[in-house]
């Protein structure tokens, strides 16, 4: 039985570009720090196949999409500003988020 994670995140990148790599590194660090064990990250490279961008209406990369929980939220950029990411994803930095 797998437990459905509280945070289902999708990171859109375009190849191993500097911003994409940085965005991933930052995202991973933030999640490990604040959401350990409660998240999944799906990395989608838009170069192949780009059609994947349609559903989430991606305008630029890197873009982080919070698919779960509702509402869907998007953050564009390399996620280097941790505070802004936490706000954007509705994560309370002081306590562990609940499902």
């Amino acid at each position, binding site marked *: 039985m797998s437990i459905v994670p509280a945070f289902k995140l999708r990171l*859109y*990148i*375009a*190849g*191993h*570009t*500097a*911003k*994409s*790599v*940085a*965005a*991933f*590194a*930052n*995202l*991973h*660090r933030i*999640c*490990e720090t604040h959401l350990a064990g409660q998240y999944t*990250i799906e*990395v989608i490279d*838009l*170069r192949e196949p*780009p*059609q994947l*961008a*349609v559903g989430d*209406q*991606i*305008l*630029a*990369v*890197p873009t982080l999409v919070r698919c779960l929980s509702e509402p869907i939220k*998007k*953050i*564009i*950029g*390399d*996620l*280097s500003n941790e505070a802004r990411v936490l706000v954007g994803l509705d994560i309370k930095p002081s306590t562990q988020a609940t499902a």
Partner: protein
Amino acid sequence: MKPKRLTKAAIFLENQDLRARLDDVEEMLRAIGRGEADALVIENGAGPKVYTIEGDEAEANRFRSDMLAMVSDAIVAVDDNERIIYVNAAAERLYGFPASSALGRKLAEIRTSHWPSPEAREAAVAMFRDRGEWHGDHVHILNDGRIIDIESSSTKLRNGYGGLGGRLSVMRDVSARKKHETQVAISETRYRRLFESAHDGILILNPGTRKIVDANPFMTQMLGYSHAELVGRELFEIGLLKDESASQEMFQKLRATRAVRYDNLPLETRAGQHQDVEVVANLYDESGDPVIQCNIRDITERRRAEEHVKLLMAEVNHRAKNLLAVVQAFAHQTAKYGDPANFTEQLSDRIDGLAAGQDLLVRNHWMGVDVADLVEVQLAHFKDLIGTRVLIDGPPALTLNMAAAQGIGMALHELATNAAKYGALSNRVGRVHIAWRVTDAPKPTFSMSWQESGGPVVAPPTRKGFGQIVIGRMAEASVEGRAEMAFRPSGLSWDLSASVENTLVSTGSRVQMRTGNDAR
């Protein structure tokens, strides 16, 4: 165009959607403004298309990334917190982690570095800090327990990857190479040991210069030259081949057939001693370079053994022929003195006696024959009478030498034959008393006697038969002693005495095999 009529709810939803799109665009613009976006995704009729927005530098970065992804060496970049910010395909394979699960993790979570010593680690850290790069070998222990040898090259990341400080490492798995190197080292050690401890001389030669490249310790011992003295010399200079032309001939042969063997070469040591050696030379390819290996075996011992065998063969041949000559003489004498009607019987009987003595000698490895054993075999026909009518009386463990064994054996045989025909063993009551002893005064003497009694009345024979010659002068000659016969009416008596020296073998000493010069 007339605006479409919408319900209040639909207007609300559309408004919300537009609001969200606007937020997205605002977010995008902010990101571009902060320089955090790489590319724009523009929808057109064919679907979304990615447009990079950072110009040449971004393209160059991408190109660099693609290159890194394709190289066969593992590439890992970490930020200043040791978090993995980049892994290429080779690194995924090396560590067994997909990039998506490796990214963001601490490097230490996917592998442990093992250093030969803490000092080595400190030195690497210091060098990286001071010079911004480090190159060296270390060992990685992976989470699945695999241990891999890594050849690594690390560079400081100064301003790439979103401004993060960090490190880019290019790693090559050299486990297979290390393993091979270890195997080569083991093999090298093994063969070295063999080379060092071989009881054959081994010389390694350069086919081009014909000079010695290496020599094992046994070779240096054999020749009396030191290793340094051997290296750089040619074979003829160390007395292995006669001269330069012999040497050239050997190398020509080697080139033609790749192997040359000399069964027996005279070798002259530094001290001028001659030694017989067997030389086997082989031409090998050592990773493309031809080398010659000569195995040189000292065959002095083997030759000595061969000589010894030859000598023994000659000796056996000599003895066999001597024995045949004795048989021939027997036949001649038997024919001359004996009754022609009984010739075959008499001759066969004598040959039997000779053969019985010979058997004893062979059984004792030519080490002589015990007196009691000799008496027993020569009186084998009267085995049942021994202890009653045939009394045997003498000390044990006296060993007759070969000549004495043959002479006394033949005499006993003749005495027994005579006793059975005419003497004490020709009737039902006569007795024979056989005795021998060793006395010390005046000098060590071996004596043996044969006394008959109770037989028919004895008269001295009218003519001397061959039997008398055998028990008389022939027995005397075999021990260089004296034999006396008396034909008393009560029975025949025979006494033989000779020096112990000419008769007996001192116990335990081996009868000397002939090693005379005449056999050479």
